[in-house]
């Protein structure tokens, strides 16, 4: 053990010792906090506040028009006994497990293809990104029409090949997968943009070195691109997973609460909407959303812990 205090330790003055700060430092801190104050205020008021209120609501029991009483764990007990919750959970997990890996894989391929200086590359990138900026209502309406079993275009084309019509949105076994297709289609653009940025961060020297060693296209892709892309992929995976677990719009637009296949396609957030707004039972709805929140939190923590295994930070 050497002389520990011969060197001056780095000065990071905590607020406790504000008196020892120079006036300039004090001023700096003041302005710093002042500048982050609006965003902080907004976050507390509009994000944190509602979350805390939802936690509170989840312990209340509801009557007509919002007359609520404290109910303790009654809503949570209800969840444990509710078969609709189980089927919603199942649908949500199937949706996530299928749509996230597929959309990321496809986005990566697309990003790689569009990471070249070919003619009209910005047109292609725009086309892929368009679904992201299209209104969900428009997406829902058009895809519903495409999927219509009797009058939709997809079945019309199948008919030309003498294939029997498929009940894309009315067959309980298929409906969820029809929605997954639309979800993947809609997500490719968003992921593509982020992965493109990640690709362009990879120094071309790696590829040059690999070429000299005689590496082919696929080797370059799997041995250089993918490993160096893992930080970006990590980010995209987390975001996609969180979004997938919260799917609502597509179910609402394309299936709706009265459809005969709602049991086969209902997600947790849709169930939340149905309970909180259609049945006006905000207590039960809040409990559902809290359970989902905890689920997503745990899965995200697992992802973060797991990243050491597969993410290469240069």
């Amino acid at each position, binding site marked *: 053990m050497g002389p520990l205090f011969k060197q001056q330790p780095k000065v990071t003055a905590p607020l406790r010792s504000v008196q020892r700060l120079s006036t300039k430092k004090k001023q700096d801190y003041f302005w710093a906090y002042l500048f982050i104050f*609006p965003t902080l205020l907004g976050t507390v*008021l*509009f994000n944190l506040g509602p979350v805390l209120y939802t936690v509170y609501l989840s312990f209340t029991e509801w009557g*007509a028009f919002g007359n609520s009483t404290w109910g303790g764990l009654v809503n949570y007990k209800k969840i444990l006994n509710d078969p609709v919750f189980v089927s919603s959970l199942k649908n949500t997990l199937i949706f996530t497990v299928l749509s996230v890996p597929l959309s990321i894989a496809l986005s990566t391929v697309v990003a790689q293809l569009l990471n070249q200086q070919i003619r009209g590359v910005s047109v292609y990138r725009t086309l892929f990104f368009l679904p992201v900026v299209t*209104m969900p209502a428009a997406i829902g309406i058009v895809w519903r029409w495409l999927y219509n079993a009797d009058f939709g275009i997809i079945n019309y084309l199948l008919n030309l090949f003498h294939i029997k019509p498929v009940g894309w*949105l*009315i067959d309980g076994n298929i409906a969820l997968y029809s929605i997954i297709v639309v979800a993947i289609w809609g997500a490719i653009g968003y992921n593509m943009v982020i992965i493109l940025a990640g690709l362009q961060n990879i120094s071309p020297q790696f590829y040059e070195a690999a070429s000299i060693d005689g590496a082919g296209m696929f080797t370059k892709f799997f041995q250089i691109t993918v490993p160096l892309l893992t930080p970006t992929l990590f980010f995209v995976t987390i975001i996609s997973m969180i979004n997938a677990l919260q799917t609502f719009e597509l179910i609402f637009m394309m299936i*709706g609460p*009265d459809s*005969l296949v709602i049991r086969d396609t209902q997600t947790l957030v849709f169930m939340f909407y149905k309970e909180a707004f259609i049945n006006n039972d905000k207590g039960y709805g809040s409990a559902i959303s809290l359970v989902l929140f905890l689920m997503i939190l745990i899965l995200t923590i697992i992802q973060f812990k797991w990243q050491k295994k597969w993410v290469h930070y240069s």
Partner: protein
Amino acid sequence: MKKLALFLMIFALVFVTACSSGGGTESGSNSGGGQESGANAGGTNTGGTDNSNEAKGAGNQPYPVTDKEVTLSYQFWDVNQQPAMQKIVDEFNKIYPNIKIQLEVIPWDQYWVNLEAAATGGTLPDIFWINATNFRLYALNNQLLPLKERIEKENYSTANFPEPLLDLYTIDGEQYGFPKDVDTIGLWYNKELFDQAGLEYPNENWTWDDLIENAKALTNPEKKVWGFAAHISQQTNWYNTVYQAGGYVLNEDRTKAGHADPKSIEGLKLFTDMIHVHKASPTIGQMTDTEPRVMFESGNVAMIFDGSWNQIRFRDNEYTADRVDVTYLPQGPAGRATIVHGLANVIAKNTKHPNEAWAFLKFLGSERAAEIQGETGTVLPSYDSAMELWVKSNPKFNLQIFVDSLEWGVGYPTTVQGRKAQQIETDIFTKAWAGEISIEEAAQQVAEGVQAILDEDNAKYK
């Protein structure tokens, strides 16, 4: 100072962004646009004095209307009726130019969810449509402005409203709204398809058997044409046939659910058999994909049951305008029956302008408003004199049948938690319509579910 200015600018920017609500609003799925609600046994209304004098200028004013400019919101769900509502507002503004009325059309699919959220948040529109399914819930939870005192103090005559409809919107002697219109159900049919098949058009002598036979004859799967759309909606479809078979949905004093009664099941079976036995109707899956009214409007379905309020929609649709007509519902084993209902205009209890809203409400219930609704062909008004106008407004359709049908009208059966009860009916009967369970089993489950709701309501609100 530069820092301060910069800070204030950023603060303003962040706050504005944080305050604006995110996300686009999702508009509803297919437009339903049906007036679904209930009423007591329909009879035609009695005549009486009209209240044109209640407008501005009448002597004593216990509820004075302000001279200042005031804006009221008037919310409803049928976009087909918007032109008529606008016309009513325009005429109202001739008497009260300072009371501006803002029309808000919320599609049927979202109307009740929206309204409930508004009620919970204390932001109900000033005046809005309500139907029997939802009326008791709002009235008994103090969301509606009571009118009895106003009626008495102003000597306002309600003699022109049909008694049963007026009663429907009264609870324990307290009046909460004025009937806006009355509606019944008819059998709409596609004349062209009947001509092509060489069949005679439906008439007043039709029975269920005629409906089945003709539906089968008109069905052509290759051409994607079905004879009849056996849809699952209550007011326009199976509620009618349940009563035509001698069954019932709810008993008179709302204490018993009648779905499992053998006669009720007969009424339900007409629909499920049409799909599974006679194969003359699209499946529930197909009717979920494409709304039956839309199928009717594109010539894919030859007959549907539908209400008088859709006259205007079929009149304005270029396919149906000249190709369809309407007649009486076919008779069932127990004779004739049709579900009768009428909407009411009501005022929110916590409106900021009760006197102005009351003035508008009276105008909405006046003969002139009824005439506008009648002569534009919008809905069958609940005013005797104005009914004729509606019937005559479109000679292409045999609209007289809707007025005649009032004679065998059955009041729309409903309870306080009507919406919840109907969701149970829809959820469980969908399985029977899809062939997953038998209609008898489904009826049993529905009866149990609805009975539970009835018991809840009777315990809480009696």
